[in-house]
């Protein structure tokens, strides 16, 4: 239980301490009172039954937290990326290799999401970069509230890049905005080229698709052109980078995209 907002985290655990503040927004609602009686009631005898119109987005609470996170990132000039993929696509390796390339030039930090263990956060911390682990317990995705808590402990530097490595899952994280600037979908070529069609919500929500493990192309039946066509069919705006985090081939395109996205994020910030 949080001390300030009284939220119950269920099975979620976040490393380190637990003090925070956040805004609880309000929504506009209105009631239609049909008076005392069975008006609009579906069962006879329920004299107190009445209808209430709510018109509220199911994800409104998550979206309020996401919006608060986004404001914070904007005020601090932080570029935040939500990395999503199936388990085993190489997200953590991509991160450690990206950190190795960039940590002398840019301030970086990482939020790691997994159901259990702090293995990934430990891998990141071994590179010398700040990282915090969120364990979602049985949860299949991170939500904006958990990320808000993690931010209070992680305290990412202003003008930095924050990577959020979501739980390995191509379905659920698509619906939950964390306040990020972009979702980045990572697809390894040991998976099928039709993943963008099988999990269209995720590839629709992403602004960049990274095709990882390209060094394995000679050994697998993966049709790169077909995969790109499927991704563009689901999301005509999506950008695509092909790379191998292991060999380093193609990493320069990813780094170029990161730097360009950071420059865009900083336009607002420097204008303040």
């Amino acid at each position: 239980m949080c001390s300030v907002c009284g939220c119950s985290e269920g099975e979620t655990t976040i490393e380190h301490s637990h003090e925070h503040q956040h805004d609880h927004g309000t929504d506009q609602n209105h009631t239609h009172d049909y008076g005392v009686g069975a008006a609009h009631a579906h069962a006879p005898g329920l004299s107190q039954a009445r209808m209430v119109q709510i018109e509220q987005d199911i994800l409104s609470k998550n979206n309020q937290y996401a919006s608060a996170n986004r404001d914070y990132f904007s005020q601090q000039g932080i570029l935040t990326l939500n990395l999503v993929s199936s388990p085993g696509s190489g997200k953590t390796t991509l991160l450690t290799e990206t950190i190795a390339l960039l940590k002398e030039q840019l301030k970086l930090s990482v939020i790691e999401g997994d159901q259990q263990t702090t293995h990934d956060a430990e891998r990141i911390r071994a590179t010398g970069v700040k990282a915090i682990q969120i364990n979602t317990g049985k949860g299949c995705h991170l939500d904006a509230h958990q990320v808000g808590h993690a931010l209070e402990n992680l305290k990412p530097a202003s003008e930095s890049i924050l990577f959020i490595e979501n739980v390995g899952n191509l379905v659920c994280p698509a619906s939950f905005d964390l306040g990020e600037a972009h979702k980045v979908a990572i697809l390894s070529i040991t998976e099928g080229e039709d993943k963008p069609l099988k999990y269209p919500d995720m590839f629709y929500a992403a602004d960049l698709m990274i095709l990882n493990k390209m060094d394995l192309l000679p050994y697998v039946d993966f049709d790169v052109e077909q995969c790109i066509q499927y991704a563009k069919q689901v999301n005509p705006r999506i950008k695509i980078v092909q790379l191998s985090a292991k060999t380093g081939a193609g990493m320069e395109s990813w780094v170029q995209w990161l730097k360009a996205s950071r420059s865009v994020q900083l336009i607002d910030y420097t204008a303040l």
Partner: protein
Amino acid sequence: MHEMSLCESILDILEQQAGEQNYHKVSTVWLEIGALSSVESDAMRFCFDAVMQGSIADKARLEIVTVQGQAWCSLCNKNVMIEQRYDTCPVCGDFHLQINDGEQMRIKELEVE
């Protein structure tokens, strides 16, 4: 199974609204779910019953109103109906469609006491 956390969000809203709208029991919940939202209606029903157990919406009836997917085709200059995100325009076959309906996940209305 993010339907579980969606149902928990629904319960949060029902509990929050109970004070504001002055009710103590919810007997029916109407949801509007877009065909292009990543919600599986059967999974939603299953989770709904489980999550509402023991709450102000215990044994409440869940009514799901499905909204068809709709997108704007800039070549045809009109709205077309689609079933999946990757559908091409049923008229001209182009896939540069702008989705404009069918992505919602909303609580529409409640029957309360």
